[in-house]
């Protein structure tokens, strides 16, 4: 299980743009065939549908008041106008004119109110729920106006609203059907196999560059690669290993693109328990691991080594790999200084899927060199969630965190890794109440430096985001932020 990148904050950074130049002649009715490993569990993003639903539905079937672009910016979609009161607590949104749902119902302010409240409802399983908790009330004074009142200032409100689908308030249960305003409607979903979308002819905005899309779901990465090789799909949304890339290299039949992911592999300590409550021990372990070698073992020359939790697509990114560089000699000295001249022993909870078992073996041999013994305990994703995330019953664990703008996790002392520094908590909380993006960025940058200095977690590397397509198609997103895969600009040659 990969965790849906649904937890994040504030406005975005721009990086890699959309793929490839425009094609000479494109077919306006082409159906784009997409291969993916992430089938949604159901069709409702507040009902535990997983990251697959963001891929298939965000901005394709459902739109928000705002969208998170592939470059990481927040831009208005269904909100034609947004004004904020003097005290920053009242946000007034005016809706786009002439928008209707796929069912034919016109979009009204009541639908928006319903949609926001749906995410905040008691039974909502959305991981956005807590970031919307600053909302005190949502009102619809007239058909075109929505007023959101906050309990405290929140500079990330527009960003957080990119995660809120605007759903028809008459739609009812949407776990197996949809009623959105996006450029595509759902045709059919065959569980375990495929989901198909077609162009919505009454779409309020510009018509998409294609006639629709079919998401084909695979359980094996090898089957996904074969599907592209045999022209059963036009594009695959994630390549899982560098070996697979060799299949597509050296030919003009395929286009390989590498964007910036937000997926970070790390070893989280339980900072509440000894010896990981000791900053010197954590810094020693950070220096004991040759992250570059680990990254190369898993991804060849792709991806990048991390010195903290923040990836380059977050505005508060800074290269902090120099804080605790690889230096096993220094690591041994620091362990002695911390009172562990003969090292110690700990259990590493290791999820049973790639790349964690390989990383665990690598760590075991790296840490043995500084006298620390790692006992690897392999667990399933479900056990990880129950034992590590919920019960916090662990010493250290491997995990990949896929979320965008998730440094906020360090501002929550109750989070599973138990990092508790009042200064960081305060910086993260006050960043949210900033008046400007610059102020927010500066505060989060400070917080990021502190967690790096204290080696709160052992961050290893950022995964590359690799999309491979047939060279007949272009215009798909490269970074896939929040797992989104925008369809509307994809063109296919005739």
């Amino acid at each position, binding site marked *: 299980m990969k965790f849906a990148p649904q937890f994040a904050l504030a406005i975005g950074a721009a990086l890699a743009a959309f793929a490839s130049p425009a094609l000479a002649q494109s077919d306006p009715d082409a159906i784009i065939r997409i291969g993916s490993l992430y089938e949604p569990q159901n069709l409702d993003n507040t009902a535990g549908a997983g990251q697959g639903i963001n891929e298939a539905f965000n901005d394709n079937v459902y739109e928000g008041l705002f969208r998170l672009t592939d470059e990481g910016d927040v831009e208005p979609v269904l909100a034609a106008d947004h004004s904020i009161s003097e005290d920053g607590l009242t946000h007034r949104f005016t809706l786009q004119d002439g928008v209707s749902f796929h069912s034919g119902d016109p979009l009204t302010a009541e639908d928006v109110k319903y949609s926001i409240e749906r995410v905040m409802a008691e039974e909502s399983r959305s991981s956005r729920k807590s970031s919307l908790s600053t909302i005190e009330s949502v009102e619809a004074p007239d058909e075109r106006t929505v007023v959101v009142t906050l309990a405290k200032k929140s500079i990330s409100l527009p960003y957080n609203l990119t995660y809120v689908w605007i759903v028809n308030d008459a739609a009812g249960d949407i776990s197996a059907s949809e009623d959105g305003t996006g450029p595509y409607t759902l045709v059919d979903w065959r569980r375990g*196999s495929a989901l198909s979308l077609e162009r919505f002819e009454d779409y309020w905005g510009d018509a998409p560059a294609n006639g629709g899309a079919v998401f084909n779901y695979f359980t094996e990465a090898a089957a996904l690669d074969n599907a592209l090789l045999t022209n059963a799909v036009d594009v695959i949304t994630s390549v899982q290993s560098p070996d697979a890339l060799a299949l597509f290299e050296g030919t003009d039949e395929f286009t390989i693109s590498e964007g910036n992911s937000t997926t970070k592999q790390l070893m989280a300590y339980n900072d509440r328990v000894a010896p990981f409550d000791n900053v010197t021990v954590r810094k020693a372990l950070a220096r004991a691991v040759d992250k570059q070698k680990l990254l190369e073992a898993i991804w060849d020359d792709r991806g990048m080594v991390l010195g903290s939790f923040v990836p380059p697509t977050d505005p508060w990114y800074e290269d902090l790999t120099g804080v605790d560089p690889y230096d096993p000699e220094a690591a041994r000295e620091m362990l002695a200084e911390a009172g562990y001249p003969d090292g110690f022993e700990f259990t590493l909870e290791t999820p049973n899927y790639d790349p964690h078992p390989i990383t665990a073996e690598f760590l075991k041999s790296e840490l043995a060199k500084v006298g620390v013994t790692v006992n690897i305990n392999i667990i399933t994703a479900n056990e990880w969630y129950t034992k590590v995330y919920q019960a916090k019953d662990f010493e250290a664990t491997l995990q990949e965190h896929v979320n965008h703008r998730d440094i906020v996790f360090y501002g929550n002392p109750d989070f599973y890794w138990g990092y508790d520094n009042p200064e960081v908590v305060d910086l993260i909380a006050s960043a949210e109440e900033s008046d400007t993006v610059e102020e927010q960025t500066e505060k989060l940058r400070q917080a990021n430096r502190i967690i790096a200095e204290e080696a709160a977690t052992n961050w290893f590397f950022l995964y590359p985001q690799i999309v491979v397509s047939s060279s007949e198609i272009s215009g798909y997103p490269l970074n896939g932020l929040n797992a989104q895969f925008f369809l509307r600009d994809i063109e296919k040659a005739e």
Partner: protein
Amino acid sequence: MARYLLRRTIVLALSLVVAGLVLFVLLRLLPGDPAAALLSVGADEAQIAAAREQVGSDQPIWVQFGRFLSDLARFDLGVSFVSNQPVLPEIMERLAITLPLTVAAFLLAIAIAVPLGILAAVRADRWYGVAISGLSQLGLAIPVFWIGILLVWLVAVEWRLLPASGFPMRGWADPVAAGQSLILPIITIAVVMSASLLRYVRSATLDVLDADYLRNARALGESFPRALIRHGIRNGAVPVISILGIELASTLLGAVVVERVFSLPGLGSMLLLGIEQRDYPSVQGVLLITTLLVLLIGFAADILQRMIDPRLRDNRGSAR
């Protein structure tokens, strides 16, 4: 016969209930909480509690079992925790792939194994008899997924003759595409299955070849092929049929691996996903239905044997 059928039906129903109980308990002995699969990193305590309440994992196990039994009595397999959809229709949809896959592979395996097995026994002293036995040994040693991967690479990727994986969006409404996507999986299963079947057929035939009745038939003037077909095959078939029943049943469950290699949305992949996500209703539903099918296959094999062998028809007979 009527009494026999009644008795078998009662045993079948009881077996199902026992299987259900065992499944229920075993599933809940697995570490992990079904509520966890529904949430992601970032969920707070209140959301976790709400999810547990929704799936009922906050209730004591006997309360959960009571609920399960009362649903089952109404033929209600429940609603998936993960998809929020009823489990039974999904099982039926997926059976429409797994069942044809298994049955076709089974028939193909018989078509390969029976003639070759008889040949290997009758011509055990010739080079090809030895070669067939040797190849079947090899077939037994090769893992099924490896054959699948090899076939995909050769037939689908290199030659582009058949699709590499998947099942058409429209399912059997698109019979050509649906059939095509099952060809490689069927061959994959049939190759492995025929290897083991062949060995049974061969040894059953060898036993028959030494039998008195065959010698007598030949002494009465029947040719060897005719004697083998009239008396040998009929006698040899009885033990082979029980093996066939077991093979068919294990293929039904063993299709998991092949379905995964070929990304087929069959029962096996539903089971695997259900286990990963601790989606109890899905796992229970799939296993109960497959248990039912396996019991029915055993039932059918039994009846078939009785039809072939008159000694089995009479319960007082020494063979029973």
